[in-house]
């Protein structure tokens, strides 16, 4: 049984990393929803191949489904090229139509055969290790692990070999075209990869949750870094963390493993979204608060600076009357004065505020700007 646990965990990790890597480019190229479209649209391909081979694990199935995936991309682009339909609508038209054909085929002809809709849509990681690769009487491990392992290696090779081209085509498609890199070729290469990865993963996690594996970790990593190479590594790590914690969560509460991994994806994304330095919600809120006080302090020193050394300076810099001159709320004024005193921009001389050297510098600089 422990053996089985380890198998499931390994499959989950390998699947998560294999999905996260091409996902990075989808997120950066704003094409994440293509994975959603592909994962649904491959259904008729799977069904037709299943009719031919009558087996859910034949390699033909993966090839046929991946072919349907690429066909979907082609369809969406053809629709777009008529200029009658926008990209999002083209996706929203294509995949439900293909998916509907798949569903009708299944319920019309496959009623007696074993092809479960739930298995296609939701997957079931728990039974993935049951299908084992056997050779010469030895048990070599679950088939799913070999399939996903191969796909992971393929993804790694593709990204490693075409790293420069992918990077250029992602960040500056026109420059890539001008330099003769044919972005179309890279685009279709990437899409083929996404199709193959989706098909390989749907067996384990189903066609809806595969989107969480593809989009979740890269989007989370995107919040954390500006560097493509770092984003790839981070996505792989986050994908693994989601897979491991999701599996742990699922065994603890005895719930769907794929669902738990998706839940963890949301949780990890949420936490990073809150706490990541500079771009997180907390950082944004704190920056806003600080900017508010800094701005108020600048207004205060400018006010003092404008009247410094003039006859009216005494009345203008009286702490008790400051709020009237600046038309601020009295409590707010007190707080700003305290903030400025704390920063040593002003100093208190009985009832008067006097600019320090530092405060004068801030005022001068603000006025020059």
């Amino acid at each position, binding site marked *: 049984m422990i053996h089985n646990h380890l198998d499931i965990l390994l499959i989950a990790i390998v699947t998560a990393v294999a999905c996260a890597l091409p996902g990075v480019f989808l997120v950066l190229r704003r094409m994440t929803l293509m994975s959603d479209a592909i994962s649904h649209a491959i259904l008729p391909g799977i069904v037709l191949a299943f009719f031919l081979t009558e087996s859910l694990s034949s390699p033909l199935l993966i090839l046929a489904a991946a072919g349907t995936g690429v066909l979907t991309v082609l369809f969406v682009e053809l629709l777009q090229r008529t200029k009658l339909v926008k990209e999002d609508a083209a996706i929203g038209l294509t995949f*439900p139509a293909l998916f509907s054909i798949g569903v009708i085929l299944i319920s019309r002809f496959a009623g007696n055969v074993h092809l479960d809709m739930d298995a296609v849509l939701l997957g079931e990681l728990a039974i993935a290790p049951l299908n084992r690769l056997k050779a010469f009487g030895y048990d070599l491990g679950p088939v799913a692990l070999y399939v996903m392992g191969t796909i992971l290696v393929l993804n790694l090779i593709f990204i490693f070999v075409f790293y420069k081209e992918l990077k250029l085509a992602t960040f500056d498609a026109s420059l890539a075209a001008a330099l003769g890199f044919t972005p179309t070729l890279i685009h279709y290469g990437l899409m083929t990869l996404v199709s193959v990865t989706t098909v390989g993963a749907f067996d384990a996690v189903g066609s809806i949750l595969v989107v969480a594996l593809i989009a979740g970790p890269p989007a989370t990593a995107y919040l954390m870094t500006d560097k493509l190479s770092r984003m790839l590594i981070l996505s792989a790590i986050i994908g693994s963390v989601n897979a491991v914690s999701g599996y742990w969560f699922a065994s603890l509460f005895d719930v769907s493993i794929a669902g738990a991994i998706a839940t963890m994806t*949301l949780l990890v994304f949420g936490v990073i979204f809150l706490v990541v330095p500079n771009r997180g919600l907390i950082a944004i809120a704190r920056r806003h608060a600080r900017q508010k006080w800094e701005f108020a302090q600048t207004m205060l020193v400018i006010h003092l600076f404008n009247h410094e050394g003039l006859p009216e300076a005494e009345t203008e810099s009286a702490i008790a009357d400051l709020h009237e001159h600046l038309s601020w709320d009295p409590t707010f004024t007190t707080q700003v004065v305290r903030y400025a005193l704390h920063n040593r921009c002003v100093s208190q001389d009985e009832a008067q505020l006097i600019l320090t050297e530092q405060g004068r510098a801030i005022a001068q600089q603000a006025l020059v700007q």
Partner: protein
Amino acid sequence: MESLSILIHLDYTLMIVAIGAALLGTVSGALGTYAVLRRQSLLGDAISHAALPGIAIAFLLTGSKTPLILVLGAAIAGWLGTLLIMSIVRLTRIKYDSALAIVLSTFFGVGLVLHTLIQRTGNANQAGLDTFLFGQAATILERDVLTIGILGGASIIVTLVFWKELKLLVFDEDFAASLGFPTRTLDILLTSLLVIAIVLGLQAVGAVLMSAMLVAPAVAARQWTNRLRLMVFLAGCFGALAGVSGTIISSTASRIPTGPTIVLCATVVVGISIAFAPNRGLVWHRIRHQRNRRDLKMAAEAQE
């Protein structure tokens, strides 16, 4: 005549289902128009998937399977999902598509986890999830038709009341904001209406295919007109047409699920519209292209 006799021989249940599907098609077509024009065609997909945890939580909290309670849960979850998408886009550099994909898949995952929890307590069966995913048009009752009619009609009336504001929001959001219209409130209003249409449609076509019911009629209608008023009207008609024809076709033979058939009917309407719509359609385009070439050639010959 033949179609008329089919209509007469429609039995009562089928008629109710057909009416329900037609109403749903009308509502989702009319409201989908706004989503398509705002390039948010896939928002419907996200909302319908995000609704699953809401249904599960509503069931866990109340323990009842009353459609109205489950629908309310679905609506709240779908609505929260949309708000999350909007805030991710507004507050981070993550783009709309990724935000949509994350919310869609992870909310669905949460729903799946809750669903397996419910299953273990022995209160519900797998059929609940299947209905959510693919819908079960055959189970539409008179009561459901009434609900669809009232809620859907109310949504459409709201779009009519705020016609000017929504039109401005759709075509020039920045201008609307500069005129002092509360664009974010209007955005939330429009999304809420969309949520209502989607939640109503879940029963008939299910979560996976609901997006097509929003997108297809609107895309088809877009080919025939450049005016919003006519587009909304046509999209409603196309939606109703797809609903009725899909229901009837699926009833003619055994084991043809209704939801997917309705979606395929809507897709056929799109195909016809893209090919043959006057001015914009592909055939029309081709004819114009050839006429222009001939005219140019004649002009060139005349000059010689």
